[in-house]
């Protein structure tokens, strides 16, 4: 997907090498633009604890969805006593509409691999896996090339970068459904077991791959680590919001003039992102869907919500895969919410009851809204069922699968009411509704 430039004042960390295409395929070109210096520096001068301290001081937080402080996760894993540890880089990017991580892995595989090496060093792991969707063939190819080139240079391998300890990185293609993006599911899949989530705690840092302590980080999180090591924690902490510093990749799609992947400082408002990176909406902006299929709808007047886990959660969306889908007034929120819920339910692994049956019932209720078959009490039923699903949830997918309908009903109550009570679809998308509603009564 196209990389789009944002505001000139936005720093470029993750996509710094987007301008030098050779850096993606040639290690010399990558090194010329600064790759592998952080790893060389760390292996030579920094103890693992110091790397963790750097990352912690930089305030780096996970970009995979939960926003857990990365330094804390590494420290917790390193504190697990006397056993083999692993690092898993999650590049699976389950959201079928998102390509931010794939773009990152394709444009700067060396940053990802170097970040993995630093993470492994920090927790004293000797092997690491980068899990990538098997369909992302270019990313896999480039990551593998980057790993072999680094091994050939001695940066990785038996005596990685002269540290004396081995470090092997494997790029593993995986196939599976949406739920594979969940960390415990990903670990089960890497173990060749059925891809179903496990109850957390214990978290993977205590009991992960093969039951051993494992750091699972998104590739985007790891790709920021070399920059932090090279430029210092303070420099990173100065970027973006104070409680959540740094930059993140945002994918803009839908009704924007200039769709693509942009690197945006945390804390930037959605309005700024759409206007400065996306060049503004093409039509009349009605809503934005933030966070992919399990994300939430935000209305036009909530566009000043800053990009951050806490702020988006409070608004009813999630940062999730970092996608921002701009929706104009030709889209029916009810219809889209029902569609997304159906997708979430179909992609579920089927382990827990609220997820397996509950999300399907939600999707059916959503479909009833769209086709004029809803009962007046169904809106309350959706609210109550989604509360119960969230409270009894096992994994992140299940917890967030209720977001599209919930956020839609929160901000677009009028549109839902039109469907349920009046049998009309203001956007004109749910066509059979009027006919069906009349026949139903």
């Amino acid at each position: 997907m196209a990389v789009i430039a944002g505001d000139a004042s936005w720093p470029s960390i993750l996509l710094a090498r987007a301008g030098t295409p050779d850096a993606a395929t040639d290690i010399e070109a990558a090194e010329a633009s600064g790759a592998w210096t952080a790893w060389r520096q760390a292996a030579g001068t920094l103890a693992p604890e110091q790397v963790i301290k750097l990352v912690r001081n930089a305030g780096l937080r996970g970009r995979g969805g939960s926003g857990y402080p990365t330094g804390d996760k590494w420290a917790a894993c390193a504190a697990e006593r006397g056993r083999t540890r692993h690092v898993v880089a999650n590049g699976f990017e389950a959201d079928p509409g998102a390509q931010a991580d794939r773009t990152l892995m394709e444009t700067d595989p060396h940053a990802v691999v170097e970040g993995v090496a630093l993470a492994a060093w920090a927790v004293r792991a000797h092997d690491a896996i980068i899990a990538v969707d098997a369909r992302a063939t270019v990313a896999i190819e480039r990551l593998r090339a980057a790993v072999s080139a680094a091994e050939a240079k001695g940066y990785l391998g038996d005596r990685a970068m002269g540290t004396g300890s081995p470090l092997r990185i494997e790029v593993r293609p995986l196939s599976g459904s949406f739920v594979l993006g969940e960390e415990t599911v990903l670990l089960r899949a890497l173990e060749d077991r059925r891809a179903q989530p496990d109850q957390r705690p214990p978290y993977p840092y205590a009991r992960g791959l093969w039951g051993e302590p494992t750091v699972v980080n998104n590739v985007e999180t790891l790709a920021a680590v070399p920059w932090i090591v090279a430029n210092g924690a303070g420099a990173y902490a100065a970027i973006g919001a104070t409680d959540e510093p740094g930059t993140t990749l945002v994918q803009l799609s839908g009704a924007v003039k200039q769709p693509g992947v942009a690197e945006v400082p945390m804390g930037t408002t959605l309005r700024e992102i759409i206007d400065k990176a996306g060049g503004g909406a093409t039509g009349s902006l009605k809503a934005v869907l933030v966070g992919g299929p399990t994300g939430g709808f935000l209305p036009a007047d909530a566009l000043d919500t800053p990009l951050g886990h806490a702020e988006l959660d409070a608004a009813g969306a999630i940062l999730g895969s970092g996608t921002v889908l701009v929706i104009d007034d030709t889209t029916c929120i009810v219809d889209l919410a029902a569609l997304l819920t159906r997708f979430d339910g179909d992609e579920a692994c089927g382990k827990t009851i609220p997820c397996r049956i509950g999300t399907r019932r939600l999707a059916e209720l959503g479909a009833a809204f769209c086709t004029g078959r809803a009962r007046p009490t169904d809106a309350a039923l959706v609210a109550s069922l989604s509360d119960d699903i969230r409270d009894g949830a096992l994994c992140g997918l299940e917890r967030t699968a209720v977001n599209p309908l919930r956020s839609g009903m929160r901000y677009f109550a009028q549109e839902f009411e039109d469907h349920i009570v009046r049998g009309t679809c203001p956007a004109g998308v749910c066509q059979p509704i009027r006919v069906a509603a009349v026949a139903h009564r």
Partner: protein
Amino acid sequence: MTDTLPALRDDAIDAIAERLLTTQSPQRPQVSPTFSIEIDGRTLTGREGQTILEVCRDNGIEVPTLCYEPKLPGFGACRMCVVEVDGEDAPPISCSRNAGPEMVVRTQTPRLRQVRKTNLELIFSDHNAYCLPPCQNKCPSHIDIPGFLKANTEGSFVESARIFKRTIPFPSVLGRVCPAPCEEHCRRDEVEEAIAIRDSHRYAGDQVLKAQALGEKAPVPFEVQPASGKRVAVIGSGPAGMSSAYYLAIAGHEVTVFERDPAAGGMLRYGIPQYRLPKVEVLEAEYQGAWDLGVKLVTDAALGRDFTISDLQNQGFDSVVVAIGCYDTNKLGIPGEDADGVLDGLEYLRIATLGLPYPGHEGKRVVVVGGGFTSMDCSRTSVRQGAKEVTLVYRRDMKDMPAANEVHEMIEEGARAIFQAAPTRVVTDEAGKVTGMEFQRMALGAPDASGRRRPEPMPGTEFIIECDRVLLAIGQGPELGWTERGADGVSATKQRRLGADAVTFATGRAGVFGTGDVRTGAATVVQAVAEGRRAAYAVDAYLKGLDLDAIRTRQTLAEPQPEFLSIVPYTGEVKEPRLRLKAMPAEVRNKSYIEYEIPYTQAEAMAESARCLQCTCEAIGYCDLRRQGIEYGTTLRTLEPARNGTSFRSVSENRFTGTNHDYIRDDSHAFILREPSRCIDCGRCANVCKEVVGAACYDFMRTGFDTLVTTPLDMSLNTTPCVSCGRCAETCPTGALMPKPRVLEKYEVDESRCILCGICVDACPYDALRCGPDYELAHDSRQEPTIDLLAISALDRDTELTYVRRERDWLARAQADGRSIPAGRQLPMLPPGAGNGSGNGGAPVAGGGHSGHLHSR
């Protein structure tokens, strides 16, 4: 100390041990440090490594689970065991969360109950199955209908009668007089026509009566308990009283029945004519079963006339059961009701059923008012007694008559019937003698509480039927005059019934119970029997000193039904028309008091019973889903009959409806029956089969809503590595995986080849094989599963809780036998060569013969 294995140092062994402990052994060492934890306001002691659920179960706190298998670590699929922990936003699930010191846990908050209830509702919304078969559910006494039909099919009629007697002591009586509500709900009607359930138990009961005539004793459904030393007085020997007496006698109590009339039977004897229920051949013969159990009878002793409740209690009866029925005929409340020639239908029948001609009935024109069984009996008896003209008048439509299915027979015999007309006055001559009766036409209005359309008078439509006699059969109530003397505490309700609890049957006076028609008002025989039986359980509990309120909880738990979904109808079955009982021609039977229906031959009885689809759930009584569905109120109390033209059998109170799955039953395996429609995808079978047995026959297949725990590609179990151990059926919380009880009867063991290893005894999960006293190995056939819910509800069932406790006792037992390591850490078996030397954690190994633990010197 040697250095042959330098790589395996302390922490390597730690790791192996830890993995073995965490992945294989649910039985963690009992010597772990303890801590205190607060659960539901109680301060409890937990051990390190225990989950919250384990602490709860150790302390008798019931947390519902469906997917939790005590042998394995928590799985977390069912989300039923959610608990609230102070300081945590999202409620964790207790099976997977380790308990910790200073934790404050709550297991029963409204929020948690709501989450659990939603879970159950969601399960039921995709649970294409039911518990009791519709017939059994509709039977007021919940007879195991598939059970006795199965026995009939096999020709075991005595066994069939025994199964029947578990819930109703009188198969032959009910085989004649029951209105058979079960047959209306039989699912065979989806194929062609309902099974003749009543005629089938009638045949089985008659076989017992024939054997009794040859000197054999009637089968007794349960083992008769040793004498309790308690005395019970049952007042009334009708169906309710005698059923109470029967089950109380089996429970070991000394029962005396007091009867107002000269002979036992109540309405069965004095209300139902001979041609429907032969008194000597059937009624007395069947009652003999009760006398055989030691029930005593005192006749000509009427409550209120000859004795009072106080008298009985003063005579040393520990408990009194009042089952005097309803004999007080209702009044019409119209002019001329007391005229000469207007008779009480019951009084008329009382004379007539003795076979005596009622004075002056011959040649008369008779009008019978009413639509129940009494009116029918009055009409048909009047025909038999030579009345010139018999007219039955009923105020509602024919299909709303309680006795609708008898109308045709009545008309065949020569009576006529007029519907939708109500009496307005009795026409008399100067002498006050009846000459006719005036009626008014009724229109049918909106449905009333009984679901029938309410008759509404149509003024100006009056007409007169000329007649000489009017028999009133418009219902009756109980006589309650006896409550005024010597019965302090016993009172009548506003509806003129005896005030007794619907579940515990207790009246306001300790030790006095009321059951049957006197409590409910006039009802069918089968309802009276059901009342009597349930009262017997309550009285038994009272006599044992149990808390009656606890009985109430258990009985209400046992009664309601998890709801139906749309059940896919049976359509592929071979059609076999119902075998109807033949009857004598109407012109013969309308002059005779001999029973007019000609019973089945043995071949016919077996063929008719074989039509049963056996659509029951075999897991009933053992189903965790049912138990929790009942506890969380996600159930319906009633089942609706199939609506015309659709396959829907049920309405839903469930908030969630939608698409649901219909899977195909797999009975290809010899021992294990798979019914995937009952599967709730908890994954227990898959986990047990893989982790405990090692066969891995099952796994989660497909994704999303269509996920199902099944064999690879849904193939037959025979093509999997199944070892027929039955652990999947044992762990299944519902009836999705079951042993095949109704198919598997007895297997021969070739003892000439047995080496007495005893492995089969150890392995059998169903106790079908046991170590007997004579042989190292003895085997006996499995008992029929007990399907009497009320009886089950009274039992202490082996729950997961007791299972866990029992499994946990292994250490205590091992220590008692000197087989165990006394202190320190316990390592399970290490890999050969691993524990070479001092790396063994330093625990001294004591107690020989524990070959699993390696020790070097």
